[in-house]
């Protein structure tokens, strides 16, 4: 397509978009004047119905859990796509870690980076697990905590070289964790139907509001999501590390 024609098409699309957008905005209240009612109903009911003081988590993992299951499988499939696309092809070999060109070797990680990354890795694990397990009480949950947890292997990679990273991480275990995280989410829903409840209905004891063992399935699903998000992101990291550092074109 010629650039000129493309510009015209984009201009037409943009004009059309802004007319429709402006028209749509006319029906919205101004920002800061949320009229309800769904958010207000959930805000008022969630703590009594589900014993979860974080309404956002209650929506994600209970009221709207079926939707979140779909989103989680988008994540799962995207990670699978990355792993499949970046895996070693038939005309490639994987050798020892790629050597830099002479005179262009990367400097080793500085002591400051190593000290910071090593010092941060243990607190990050604790912080990530804290965010995952307290999602039903305070802001947090599986999605946020999973991302925090997944940054720990990245810090460990920054500490040393790729071989050391491989020595302390397990590809098989990460894959299993990702599958288990996605599977447990669906399984909880199915176990509910076996007990005569609706799919993903909250059938576990709700516990005392404000404790970790509260909110029934919300806490369990949040934990499973955390494991899946963390393992999925680590798998993406590993796939990219492999592609950039290990896999080579042609025979070795």
């Amino acid at each position, binding site marked *: 397509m010629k650039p000129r024609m*493309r510009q015209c098409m*984009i201009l037409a*699309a*943009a004009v059309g*978009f*802004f007319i429709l*957008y402006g028209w749509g*905005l006319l029906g*919205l209240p*101004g*920002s*800061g*004047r*949320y009229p*309800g009612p*769904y*958010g207000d109903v*959930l*805000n*008022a009911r*969630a*703590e*009594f119905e589900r014993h979860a*003081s*974080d*309404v*956002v988590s*209650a*929506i*994600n993992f209970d009221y*709207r859990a079926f939707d*979140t299951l779909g*989103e*989680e499988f*988008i*994540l799962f499939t*995207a*990670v699978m*796509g*990355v792993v499949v*696309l*970046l895996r070693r092809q038939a005309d490639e070999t994987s050798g020892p870690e790629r050597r830099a060109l002479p005179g262009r070797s990367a400097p080793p990680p500085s002591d400051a980076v190593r000290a910071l990354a090593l010092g941060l890795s243990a607190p990050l694990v604790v912080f990530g697990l804290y965010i995952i397990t307290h999602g039903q*009480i*305070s*802001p947090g*949950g599986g*999605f*946020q905590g*999973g*991302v925090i947890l997944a940054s720990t292997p990245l810090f460990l990679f920054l500490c040393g070289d790729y071989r050391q990273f491989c020595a302390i991480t397990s590809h098989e275990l990460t894959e299993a964790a990702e599958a288990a995280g996605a599977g447990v989410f669906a399984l909880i829903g199915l176990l509910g139907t076996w007990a005569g409840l609706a799919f993903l209905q909250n059938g576990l004891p709700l516990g005392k509001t*404000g404790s970790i063992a509260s909110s029934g399935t919300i806490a369990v699903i949040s934990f499973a999501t955390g494991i899946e*998000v963390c393992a*999925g*992101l680590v798998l*993406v990291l590993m*796939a*990219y590390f492999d*592609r950039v550092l290990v896999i080579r074109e042609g025979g070795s």
Partner: protein
Amino acid sequence: MLLWFPYAVAAWLFAIGLYGLATSRNIVHAGLCLAVVQSSTYVLLSAAGYRTGAAAPVFARVAVGTPAVDPVVQALMLTDIVVEATVLALLLALTIQAHRRLGTVDPDQLGILRG
């Protein structure tokens, strides 16, 4: 004026991202433009659910019944942010393979898709 400002920001983010996508000379750049377009939806959603002076929808420290912002849009957003990150990773993986097979990352040079 301030009532419509967040909606204008969302429209601006969408437009600038779309412009970047349309004029992109590099798939990596196009992927990042897609992320910008997507972030406009976050601004739009949180603006639509915002209530001036209201609390966050977390009732651990404040009593139930305190005016709070809409939790539904926040739930929509936070799942999407994580999903967006992995979808961007998928796009970058596609870029690596496209570059390996065709030797270019310019969308115009990629030509027709080959199986």
